[in-house]
């Protein structure tokens, strides 16, 4: 697992393709939101929705690449021979989680600066983003594996990831809107705990499903 994580890290530091794609997409989306909300202050619920939609699309654009690239470069078979499917899944999902958390931190800071929003519950915001990004990463890694061997893999991975991840986004919005000052704190913490449970379920169930599809 650590070897797989290290391999992804080295490949990313060489090419920076994933971080660049996610970063560019996220910055463009936040700037678009800023243009759309120019001249008025976003309410907490709407701001939370926009932030999570941006996170969702930056995840589905950038994260499945770690598996799609293996098939495109023809290195998938070598990986199948050298590593157990569970180790591959956890390595790639952990790498995706790290990348997604970095993207989320940068994106949220930019979002807060441009929209001038007040954070009422910083801890809730941080924990829900961390749990949400972990859940999104595991889900996207699984969807990437499902689409990796299809002829139209890039489009298919986005098409199957979005409906799969939308329930997580709903929970994330529930938590973040409270962090932005809309709604009761108990509801926000409920959403945050839901996200954490989702992340645990996806990380523990994902490797078994991954093992079923990660073969020739």
């Amino acid at each position, binding site marked *: 697992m650590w070897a797989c994580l290290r391999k992804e890290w080295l490949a990313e530091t060489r090419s920076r393709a994933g971080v660049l794609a996610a970063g560019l997409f996220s910055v463009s989306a936040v700037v678009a939101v800023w243009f759309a909300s120019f001249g008025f202050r976003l309410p907490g619920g709407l701001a939370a929705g926009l932030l999570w939609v941006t996170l969702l699309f930056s995840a589905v654009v950038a994260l499945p690449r770690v598996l799609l690239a293996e098939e495109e470069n023809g290195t998938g078979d070598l990986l199948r021979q050298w590593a157990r499917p569970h180790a591959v899944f956890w390595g790639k999902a952990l790498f995706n989680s790290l990348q997604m958390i970095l993207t989320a931190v940068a994106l949220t800071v930019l979002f807060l600066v441009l929209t001038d929003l007040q954070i009422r519950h910083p801890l809730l915001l941080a924990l829900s983003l961390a749990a949400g990004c972990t859940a999104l990463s595991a889900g996207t890694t*699984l*969807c990437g594996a*499902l*689409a990796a*061997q*299809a*002829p*139209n893999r890039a489009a*298919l991975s986005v*098409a*199957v990831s*979005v*409906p*799969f991840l*939308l*329930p997580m986004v*709903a929970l994330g919005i*529930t938590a973040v809107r409270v962090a932005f000052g809309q*709604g*009761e704190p108990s*509801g926000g913490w*409920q*959403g945050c705990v*839901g996200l954490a449970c*989702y992340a645990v*379920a*996806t990380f523990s*169930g*994902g490797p078994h*499903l*991954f093992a*079923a*599809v990660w073969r020739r």
Partner: protein
Amino acid sequence: MRNLANVLLLAAMAGATVVSYLVPPAKGFQEPDLARIIFFHLPCAFAATAFLFYGAFAAIRSLSGDRLLWDARAEAAHAMAAAMAIATMLSGILFSRVQWGAWWQNDPRQTSFLLVLLILGAYFAIRSAFQDPERRARNSAAYAVGSLLPNLFLIFVFPRLPQVSTFHPMVIGKQGGFDPIYWRTILLVFACLMATAVWAYRQRVRAILLEERLEQLDAELDSRQRHAADRVVRAVRLPEPDESPGG
């Protein structure tokens, strides 16, 4: 015998439809007469949920062995779930228009069912992306099993979260406010609808298995013809030395 069962099924479904019109109009709705949509809307939603979870069960069986048979069952169950979910959405949209005044109310239950429909769409997108039956079965089964958690959340948890307010009456549990005669009619229509849906599901499974058999036979025939063509020796006239272009 089978024809008699089909005729009985048709008669039962027609009888249930007639009964749904004989029940007195529901009080407390904007349009009491049109509240009868519930008699078809709720059973369709229950049937969609039942087929969705049976589809996930069939997908688990498909991953653990006897792949092609259980894959056919999973596909047919998902197709029935999609048909029932579409019927639920259409009847719900109609109900929303006549009772609440708008085609779409941003109701959490409406939205969550739409998301379930999108997940079903993604399942069929995966199926259509793979030509190889083995890989198609494996990948679509993994997606069906993986989407069990989102589906459970969308159907049973999300509409009941205290943070979301819904127009939908809570018809199951303590707050269930239907008259007993309404519940009896709903259960009667549900029983007839399920019987019809199970019949359609079995026909679909048979059709999928026959299609697969036909494809196998086609492939075998193609392979035999190719081998036969390899063995044919055709007489070819060789050019005489003085007829050749160089000579």
